[in-house]
């Protein structure tokens, strides 16, 4: 592990890699500050900019874009009661009352410092836990890899409380992933004679449609993203008061950050859920719970520390197992694979310098975000005043180029539109988009796991049930279905109500 860290440090400290950290932080914060444009969206529209970069350079940039977008989402949440990302839903509940009391700068200071430190906390856990998990995952063979993907889908379904919908989305994702030439025999499947489909559908095209184009269709519902009443008033000193507010509450910070990292590492549980869980934790542990909702620092600290810690936690299964548990990690894995890297345990073995440099860049990026944005907060806040009628057409053009640039194909742009429409309906009727995306990204790994697993068992499907590790994975799969069901039955529907409060959006 130490060797990997040193290799990564050597890479991340190269000037052309190092510069990507602040660049990613600024870009991510700006995009995240536009309501509706979450971390996954920020990464998706930035992917075309990374085509010319080296893999680690691109990933350092994209990881910091995603991480800081989560903080960016708190800006409109605090200033105008509109969550910028699903992960900043609970931030509104006390952030906006603080703005109304004239404490906007203080709330932004809390949000910035809590986000940065929460992300740092999660990044340390990521750095410590990922190598042992990855080395354990190296023991997985084809049947286990197939079951890991299945576990990812059941976890997403359980976490969102929509198991049938998750399975349905998962099946469709698996089917879409089979379009193109068969990876083993090269026989074309479901291509309908269209030459452009022979190479299959590139999952980044699907991601751009599902997260990017569909988001534009949603944004049309807003006439103006923000109102001018949200003009930011406050001084640098006020921001520092917010920083002190976090320092004064170390126990609450540690509690919510740990919860965020642990839950974030579970596929399907994104910041959209954890920020509300954290808010409820803060309420239940407070001596003055009645004050929540009136504009108190704890109400901003808890969700903000959590959402960044959650994103760091979500990177653990993404890097070690190749399972994108959240929208942000799905988009990030898209960027990773676009640069020829294969997520999963082999990444730690084959390209340790890349994976460690990305983890270290995320670790450096979080405290840097605090320093950087404390100094340019006022300018960043102004960005959210851009109306949607200007924003949408410009973003659409970027999305089109993003989809086109992958294979320089206009056919792909057409596919992207189809996925955008599908994503719009899936999100409208609460089908977990991640469950669709996961098999798309892992398509070849899942199929290889299934077919080579069968070959390994000489055609006997019992190989998926009789190996010690597969038995353990089946237990986890069944537990991931049964336990949330039992909990829901026992504790009523409070959990799902809590998720509904998050706006019904996917956990990006």
């Amino acid at each position: 592990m130490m060797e990997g860290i040193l290799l990564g440090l050597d890479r991340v400290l190269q000037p052309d890699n190092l510069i990507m950290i602040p660049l990613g932080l600024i870009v991510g914060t700006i995009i995240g500050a536009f309501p509706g444009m979450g971390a996954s969206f920020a990464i998706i529209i930035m992917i075309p900019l990374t085509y010319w970069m080296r893999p680690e350079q691109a990933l350092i940039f994209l990881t910091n874009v995603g991480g800081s977008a989560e903080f960016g989402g708190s800006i409109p949440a605090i200033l105008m009661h509109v969550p910028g990302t699903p992960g900043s839903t609970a931030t509104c509940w006390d952030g906006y009352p603080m703005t109304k009391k004239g404490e906007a700068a203080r709330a932004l200071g809390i949000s910035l410092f809590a986000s940065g430190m929460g992300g740092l906390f999660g990044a340390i856990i990521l750095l410590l836990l990922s190598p042992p998990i990855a080395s354990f995952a190296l023991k997985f063979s084809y049947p286990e890899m197939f079951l890991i993907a299945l576990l990812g889908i059941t976890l997403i379904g359980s976490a969102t409380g929509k198991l049938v919908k998750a399975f349905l989305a998962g099946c469709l994702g698996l089917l879409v992933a089979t379009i193109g030439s068969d990876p083993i025999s090269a026989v074309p499947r479901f291509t309908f004679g269209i030459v452009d489909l022979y190479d299959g559908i590139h999952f980044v095209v699907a991601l751009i449609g599902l997260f990017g184009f569909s988001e534009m269709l949603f944004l049309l519902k807003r006439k103006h993203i923000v109102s001018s009443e949200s003009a930011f008033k406050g001084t640098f000193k006020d921001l520092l008061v917010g920083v002190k507010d976090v320092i004064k509450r170390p126990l609450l910070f540690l509690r919510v950050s740990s919860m965020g990292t642990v839950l974030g590492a579970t596929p399907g549980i994104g910041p959209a859920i954890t920020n509300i869980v954290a808010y409820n934790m803060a309420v239940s542990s407070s001596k003055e719970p009645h004050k929540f909702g009136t504009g108190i620092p704890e109400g901003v600290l808890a969700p903000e520390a959590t959402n960044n810690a959650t994103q760091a936690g979500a990177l653990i299964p993404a890097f070690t197992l190749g399972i994108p548990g959240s929208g942000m990690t799905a988009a990030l894995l898209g960027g990773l694979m676009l640069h020829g890297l294969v997520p999963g345990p082999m990444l730690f073995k084959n390209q340790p310098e890349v994976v460690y440099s990305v983890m270290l860049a995320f670790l450096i990026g979080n405290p840097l975000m605090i320093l950087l944005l404390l100094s340019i907060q006022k300018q960043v806040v102004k960005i959210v005043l851009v109306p949607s009628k200007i924003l949408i057409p410009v973003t659409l053009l970027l999305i089109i180029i993003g989809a086109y640039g992958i294979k320089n194909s206009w056919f792909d742009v057409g596919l992207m539109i189809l996925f955008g429409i599908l994503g719009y309906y899936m999100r409208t009727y609460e089908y977990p988009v991640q469950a669709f995306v996961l098999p798309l990204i892992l398509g070849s790994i899942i199929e290889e796991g299934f077919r080579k697993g069968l070959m390994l068992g000489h055609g006997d499907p019992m190989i998926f049930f009789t190996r010690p590790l597969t038995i353990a994975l089946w237990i986890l799969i069944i537990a991931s279905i049964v336990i949330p069901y039992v909990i829901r039955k026992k504790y009523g529907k409070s959990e799902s109500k809590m998720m509904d409060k998050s706006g019904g959006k996917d956990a990006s």
Partner: protein
Amino acid sequence: MKRLIVPVIFLLFIIIALLESKDLPPGAGLYPKVIIAGGFVVVTIALIKEIKTIRSEKKAGQYALKRISYEKILKDPLVIKQLFIIISTLIYIFLVEKTGFIIISTIYIFLNFYILGFRHKTHLPFISIATSLIIYLVFGLFIKIPLPMQFLEEWISKLIRGLII
């Protein structure tokens, strides 16, 4: 009935896949057939669940069985804007090779600005042209994505190269 949109789309997709998978050889066809079989089971459960929900909502009086009025839907400003974005993007794809990137992008942005309500007489054309030019410079010339080139793009490329040299 809107609840049934997504499972019906999925069902159609699975039926098409089933028909297409008939001719696949055993090796390449086994895996998709297993997914299709699983998909059928899940989509059936999903449809039953949605129909049950509709029935229970009906009983509770929360669900009013209305005829879908396409006329009403097409008059909805949100639907008009969404349709405009989708159709204009499709037209963009068809025309971009013929017109070159800058001209079609300028028109695309201009029309979308206009439809979405940004109609400032001087800012509208200026921002439309500036946006497509900047995007062309960044992605076409700097990142080197081979964006479709016609006379305008070629002229700009020559100009930029001339300035650099």
